């Protein structure tokens, strides 16, 4: 599975942003305009799509696209 492509696709769909904006440094809230509910929905979508559980303590750390991708790669690797 191409995790990177899938994660990008989810972010584009959930947050309604352009794919070009979804860079590794992009912060979900500051750069991609997500609010607190969006971030919860995003985590739920990752859990659903990748069939995993993401603990709240872990979810809190996933503030940027890069951090989310790294986390998911490790978790699914």
């Amino acid at each position, binding site marked *: 599975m191409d995790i990177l492509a899938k994660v990008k696709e989810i972010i584009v769909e959930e947050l309604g942003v352009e794919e070009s904006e979804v860079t590794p440094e992009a912060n979900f809230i500051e750069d991609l305009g997500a*609010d607190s*509910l969006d971030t919860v*929905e995003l985590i*739920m979508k990752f859990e659903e799509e990748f069939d995993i559980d993401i603990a709240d303590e872990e979810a809190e750390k996933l503030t940027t696209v890069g951090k989310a991708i790294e986390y998911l790669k490790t978790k699914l690797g």
Partner: protein
Amino acid sequence: MKGFEDKIAVVTGSARGIGFAIAEAFAQNGATAVILDLNQEDVNNAVQKIDDAGLRAIGFVADVTDSEFISNVFKEIHKKFEKIDILVNNAGITKDGLIMKMKESDWDDVINVNLKGTFNCTQKVCRYMLKQKFGVIINITSIIGIMGNAGQANYAASKGGIIALTKSTAKEFSSRNIRVNAIAPGFIQTDMTAKLPKEVIDKYTAAIPLSRMGLPKDIANLCIFLASDEANYITGQTIQVDGGLVM
């Protein structure tokens, strides 16, 4: 009033009493009523009654205190209809007793069904309502949750909790076009109030400015209004339907 033609309305504890009147009213206004209750036979009978009137209803056996089970029920409802427009958290029980004599289990049971059950269903349905960016949640509380009642500490606490939960839910989800309100019935003719002694009923009826007990239909009418577009600017409120008993 019509206008609920393509709407899916889930009502908990709706095999009988106020819950059934609410489910029936949604069906009469064109919605598909989704009846949730504990007992399979009761659920079947309720669905049948609505069906016999040529209206739409389906039913699920569900215990609102079981979070995982409820999650699956909502998943199934969503799978079938691809949306859930309206949730009415109506399921409720009483286990009355004076505080000094109240068993811990009586406290826990009432809080679990009335308050935690409302939370469980709200949490699960919001998963879908958030995505739809639309939803109406109506929580059935009680005037007892506003004024308190000797012998009903557990029930009063659960219903007061529902009022606070309603406000918090309204605030958390308002940005997603989800409106959340509570209805506080007064004394309504149901199986629940039929258990009360005649002198208690007489005493309360005498204190009601409109001089009668309410009907389940009185509650259902407000549900229809709150779920309609006419109530688009109303959220976080608790509205009493009590013949003026508490003001």
